[in-house]
C-alpha cells in the first residue's frame, strides 16, 4: 500500500485472482452430494450453477464498491437505493398473478424483479435529483423511505397471498440459486462483464469523487457524467444479479470492505479485485449451501451471512489500523 499502484502490479494481481477463481470454480463443480458422471458434472448439472454464482457475486461486489464511493458511505451496499424492495415487489406480484409464460427461458418472477429493480432505482434517482443535485443525503433518504414503503407493500401482499405463493416468495427473497440455461448465463455474464469494464474505465474518477463532488470537479473530473454512468451501470448489473438469483445479502457490503482492508482504497484495483473476490466468495458459499443440509438445499443468502460475517470481523480487527475511516 505504501507505493502507488502501477499497471503492472494491477495486472499481476488481477491475473492471480482470476487463476484462484478458476480453481475454485473447478473444485466446486466436482463437489456435490449426488453422484453424477464426470462428463455430466460440467455440462448440464453443476457448472452452470457455479458460473451463475460467479456472475452474481461479481456483479454485487462491484456495485457495492460503486455505491460506497458515490454515496461516500461505508454502510452503502447494492440494495441501499431500494433495488431490493423494488425487485421483491416485482417478484411477489409475479408470483401472486400466477403467470406461466417465460421470456428467454426466464420465469415471470425474474422479469418482474428486473423491471421492479430498475423502476425503483429510477424513482429514487429522480427524487434525489429534485432534492439537490450534488447532495447524497437526499438520495440516501429517498432510498431508505422507498425501501421501507415497498417492504410494507411486500408484507401486505404476503399476508393476503396463499401459503404456497408465500413460500415461493420467501425463498426468493432469501436469495437462491438454481440451474440455468446457458443462454441466460451468457446474457448475464455479458452484461456484468461489460458493466465491470465500463466501471473500470471511470475508476480514476471514482477515486476523486471519494473526496466530494466539488473537490473532484475542481480537480478536473466531469462529475455529472461519472456519477450518471456509475449509478446506471451499478444499478443495471445489480438488477441483472437480483433477477437471476433473488436477494443475496452481504456480498455487496462485505466483499468491497474486505478487499479495501487488504489492498487499499484505490478504485482502479478495488473494482476488478472486488468483482473476482465476490465471485469466489459466492461460488464457495453456494457450494456449501448445496451440500450442508443435503438432499435439501439452503438459500445461499443464509450461508453468505453466516460464513461471511465472522470472516469479515476477523479482517476488520486485523487490518483496521491501516484505514482512516475507523481509527483516528
Amino acid at each position, binding site marked *: *500500500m*505504501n*507505493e*502507488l*499502484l*502501477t*499497471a503492472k502490479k494491477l495486472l499481476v494481481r488481477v491475473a492471480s485472482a482470476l487463476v484462484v477463481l478458476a480453481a475454485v470454480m473447478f473444485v466446486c463443480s466436482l463437489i456435490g452430494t449426488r453422484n453424477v458422471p464426470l462428463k455430466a458434472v460440467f455440462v448440464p448439472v453443476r457448472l452452470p450453477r457455479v458460473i451463475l454464482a460467479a456472475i452474481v457475486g461479481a456483479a454485487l461486489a462491484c456495485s457495492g464498491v460503486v455505491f*460506497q*464511493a458515490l454515496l*461516500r*458511505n*461505508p454502510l452503502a451496499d447494492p440494495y441501499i437505493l431500494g433495488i431490493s424492495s423494488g425487485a421483491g415487489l416485482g417478484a411477489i406480484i409475479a408470483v401472486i398473478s400466477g403467470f406461466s409464460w417465460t421470456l428467454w427461458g426466464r420465469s415471470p418472477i425474474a422479469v418482474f424483479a428486473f423491471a421492479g429493480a430498475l423502476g425503483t432505482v429510477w424513482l429514487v434517482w429522480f427524487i434525489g435529483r*429534485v*432534492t439537490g443535485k450534488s447532495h447524497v443525503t437526499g438520495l440516501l433518504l429517498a432510498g431508505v423511505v422507498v425501501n421501507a414503503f415497498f417492504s410494507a407493500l411486500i408484507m401486505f401482499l404476503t399476508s393476503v397471498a396463499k401459503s404456497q405463493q408465500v413460500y415461493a416468495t420467501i425463498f426468493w427473497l432469501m436469495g437462491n440459486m438454481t440451474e440455468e440455461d446457458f443462454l441466460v448465463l451468457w446474457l448475464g455474464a455479458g452484461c456484468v462483464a461489460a458493466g465491470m469494464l465500463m466501471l*473500470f*474505465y471511470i*475508476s*480514476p*474518477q471514482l*477515486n*476523486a469523487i*471519494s*473526496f*466530494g463532488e*466539488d*473537490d473532484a*470537479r*475542481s*480537480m*478536473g*473530473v*466531469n*462529475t455529472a457524467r461519472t456519477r450518471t454512468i456509475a449509478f446506471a451501470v451499478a444499478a443495471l448489473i445489480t438488477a441483472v444479479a437480483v433477477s437471476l438469483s433473488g436477494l443475496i445479502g452481504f456480498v455487496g457490503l462485505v466483499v468491497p470492505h474486505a478487499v*479495501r482492508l487488504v489492498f*487499499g*482504497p*484505490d478504485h*482502479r484495483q478495488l473494482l476488478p479485485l472486488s468483482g473476482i473476490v465476490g465471485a469466489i466468495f459466492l461460488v464457495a458459499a453456494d457450494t456449501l449451501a448445496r451440500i450442508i443440509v443435503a438432499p435439501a438445499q439452503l438459500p445461499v443468502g443464509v450461508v453468505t451471512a453466516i460464513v461471511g460475517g465472522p470472516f469479515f470481523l476477523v479482517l476488520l480487527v486485523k487490518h483496521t489500523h*491501516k*484505514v*482512516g*475511516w475507523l*481509527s*483516528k
Partner: protein
Amino acid sequence: MSIIEVSHLSFGYPVGPRFATGRKTETHVEVLRDLSFEVMAGTFLVIAGPNGAGKTTLLNLLCGSLAPKSGSIRIDTAAIESYSTEALAAKVAVVRQEFVPVFGFSVIEMAMMARTPYYGQMGFESKDDRDIVNEALEATDTSQFASRTLASLSGGERQRVFIARALAQSTAILLLDEPTSFLDLKHQVGIYDLLKRMQLEKGKTIVAITHDINLAAQYADVTLLLGADGSYQYGRTKDVFSTEQIEKVFGVRTFSGKVGQEKFFIPLGKFAKDSAQINGKPDSSRQK
C-alpha cells in the same frame, strides 16, 4: 495583465425549491451585489469579511462550482463559462475547508488525483505526473509522510497535503478557503509562508479567504473586504484595513498599532481590560 476579472457580479441563493414555494420564479437571498474587481497575475489577494458576507460563495463562483446570476467572470481573459471542467482545472486549483474522506487513501495517492485528467488510456499516471506530484510534496514539506493515510495526520500536516494536491494541478491560480482555521500559530504562519513562497518563486496568483486580518496585513498585496450588506472595499491591503473600516464592516472596535512598517489590529470586546482607556482614543499609536 489581469488574470481574474470580475465585473458587475451578482449572486443569490434560491429560497427553497421551485415546486415547494409554488411560484413560477425562484426568490433569491442576495449574497453578492454588483461586485467588480481585477486581480493581476502573480499577486496575493486576501478575501476578508464577516460570516455570511459571501466569501465562500465568491470562491465557488471563481472556480466554476456556482454560476453567476448576473455579471461576468473572466479567467485568463476568457469567460469562465467557456471553460470545460478539465480546462478550468488546468487554470484554477482549490483548497476547500478541511474535509476528511471516508476511505483510507494515502497522502501520495490523494495528491496524485490532481493529475486525473492527464491519466493515460489505461487510467494510470505518466512519469511527468509523478515528477510533478513529488515536486509538490517537496514544496509543501509533506514527502516524508507520503505513504501515510490522511486520517493519521495532524490538522496542519493535512492542510499542507491539500495544498500539495492543489499545487500538483500546476495551475496559475490557487484559491484557498480559510487555509489556517483550526491551526495553531506556528502552522498558521507556516501555511502563509508557503503560499507567499509559491507566489514569489512560481509566480502563482494566490486568492485566500481568511478571518485573520493581521496575517492578511502581513502577506497580502491586495485585499477584498466584503461587507454583510453587499458593500465591498477593494485595494492595496494597507489602504483597505483601518480601524474605521473594520468597525464598519465587522461591527467590532479595534486597537491598531504599528510594528515597524506593518500595521496590526487587536479587536476589543466590551469587557476588554483596558477597553475604557483605549476606547476614548482610538488609534492611540499615532499620538506617540
